[in-house]
């Protein structure tokens, strides 16, 4: 298993698909960059964890999925949500805790979900997604609908017992689930090379009986190809598999993190050399008119701008909502 260089897979996708992929990545980028600023106003409650820098992984995976396929996400979930088709405004409202948010303001950044597009929820519990996605895969297998599910975890989360259990059980029950590990090199502030005993996340898969690949998570095409294979394997009854996607996170672990475990220069370098949008552009040169991509970025920025303006102005949940939806009838 070596870090593959991006396949020249751009040809496999239609122009519309390529533009859609870029649109999702651009939306994620703009969304997160804006949140980075908005958070400094103090108007967003709680913790937010930004996905900027890892766009190609969420989008590369989710471009292979249908609305009826499910993904389970992490605390760093905005990118997965957007990649899977969650509404930007619904998300922004949610992050500001407003009644018309995707979760009516009750979930917030760490719990955005939209089951109607197959998004099983961001998850505040590290290692939360793998067992749940394994269950979604059980449903798909049982119903025989050729659905698949994807569990996103980080390098830090790869050390959680729930994750190991889920991988093993998915093999035992031969379930169509893809375990994607976004290895951005850090948990909170501990290096992956410290916390992963073998220093090899994907390498663990063999011990549970799953195939695994490592890809450059900043290269949309590399991720897309790997996910295509993994999803096809699942859909055709071939069982679960693992993708480790090497990533770089642009911002701190959470907004407010002083980033003391790396230098400003390192972060600048990351932004310069590991920008999934730039990398995408370089790979589609000749295939896509760059002006189209510029336009997509502008549109994304505008959509985010509007969503912030609207979310800020939107209504809070009313007091009666406090005890609504604990149970079906309460």
């Amino acid at each position: 298993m070596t870090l593959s260089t991006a396949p020249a897979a751009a040809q496999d996708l239609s122009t519309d698909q390529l533009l859609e992929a870029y649109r999702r990545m651009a939306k994620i980028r703009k969304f997160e960059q804006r949140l980075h600023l908005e958070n400094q106003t103090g108007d967003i409650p709680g913790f937010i964890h930004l996905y900027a820098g890892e766009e190609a992984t969420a989008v590369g995976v989710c471009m292979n999925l249908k609305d009826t396929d499910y993904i389970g996400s992490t605390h760093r979930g905005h990118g997965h949500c957007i990649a899977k088709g969650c509404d930007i405004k619904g998300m922004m409202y949610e992050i500001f805790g407003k009644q018309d948010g995707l979760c009516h303001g009750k979930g917030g950044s760490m719990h955005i979900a939209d089951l109607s597009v197959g998004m099983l929820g961001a998850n505040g519990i590290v290692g939360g997604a793998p067992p749940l996605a394994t269950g979604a895969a059980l449903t798909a297998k049982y119903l025989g609908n050729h659905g698949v599910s994807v569990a996103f975890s980080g390098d830090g989360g790869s050390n959680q017992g729930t994750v190991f259990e889920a991988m093993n059980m998915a093999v035992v029950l031969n379930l169509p689930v893809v375990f994607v590990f976004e290895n951005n090199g850090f948990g909170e502030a501990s290096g992956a090379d410290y916390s992963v005993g073998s220093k090899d996340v994907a390498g663990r898969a063999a011990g549970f009986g799953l195939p695994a690949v490592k890809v450059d998570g900043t290269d949309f095409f590399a991720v897309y190809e790997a996910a295509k294979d993994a999803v096809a394997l699942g859909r055709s009854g071939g069982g679960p598999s693992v993708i480790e996607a090497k990533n770089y996170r642009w911002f701190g672990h959470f907004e407010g993190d002083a980033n003391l475990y790396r230098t400003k220069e390192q972060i600048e370098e990351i932004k310069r050399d590991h920008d999934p949008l730039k990398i995408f552009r370089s790979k589609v040169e000749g295939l896509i008119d760059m002006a189209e991509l510029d336009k997509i970025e502008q549109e994304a920025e505008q959509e985010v701008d509007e969503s912030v303006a609207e979310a800020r102005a939107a209504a809070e949940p009313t007091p009666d909502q406090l005890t609504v939806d604990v149970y079906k009838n309460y």
Partner: protein
Amino acid sequence: MTATSTVKGTTMTQTGEQKTKRMSFRQAINAAMAEAMREDEKVVLIGEDLRGGNGGTNPDPTVEAFGGVFGVTGGLWTEFGGDRVIDTPISESAILGAAAGAAVTGLRPVAELMFMDFFGVCYDEIYNQAAKFRYMFGGKATTPLTVRGIIGAGVGAAAQHSTSPYHLFTSTPGVKVVVPSNPADAKGLLLASIRDDDPVIFCEHKALYDVKGDVPVGSYVIPLGKANFTRRGTDVTIIAIGNPVNAANKVADKLKGEGISVEVLDPRTTSPLDEEAVLQSVADTGRVVIADESAARCGFGHDLAALIAQKGFHDLKAPIHLVTPPHSPVPFSHALEQLWIPGAERIEEAVRTVLKED
């Protein structure tokens, strides 16, 4: 129908005569699962050794080698097959998490935790996941999950296989909790649990598995949140749940001979709780003994006592008496374990005491 002749304001969904069959608590639970699986193919069972005999050197591919650790799922694999009766590795987080994930995406799983004592390795899948989905996601998720497991002391299973942590489950918003005390209730409540669209934790007291009773055949549902008066009386109320209900009934029957009229109220579900029935009985008798095996501190009994001290205070003629285990792990020794259990002797003593107080 004997099992329900004393029921008031509650319980039966069917009317008129319903055929009953004598069977054990174990068989009643088994029958409920079979019934649920027959009527809805989205119902699947998942857990460890529900069948038993997968892999290994099993000479007979048709045999159910276990049927659950106390035989409760026996026969179900044979009837419904391996797609619906799913044996798993020993991985409780994956079991409950997968069941939660399957529930929120369209199935209606019944997961078995085997012994509820094991909740500590996997409760996050309920506490932070299944129980919170609906609320956290703004009402847009439905998680029809049932978790079955064994509770209770009395058979020498020692400290790690004898607890009854239903109070912990009761305190978790978003789950419902059922603690049946007899075969008929077990069947009716389990069917209700499986049909329920919210996560339900169903607690089976191991000392009851061999207890027999008359159980309605076919589809028989007892709504969650409806208490049952197993004895009517006017002098004192015993509120008991799970196995202690049977001890309380014994005490009531014994004291009847002495002219003491004891009411026994079995809430049957701790969440939702039939507050109305509790407060009504307190109003009727004014004297309360609570018999509960969950805990000596922050238990279900304390929850009941707090309810009464808030909303039934003016009806109380005497202090509330709690009969719970001591604040200790469950001892292995049979002699000590019998002292640990909130049994008939201690319940009777509390009743006699509360009758003398004012």
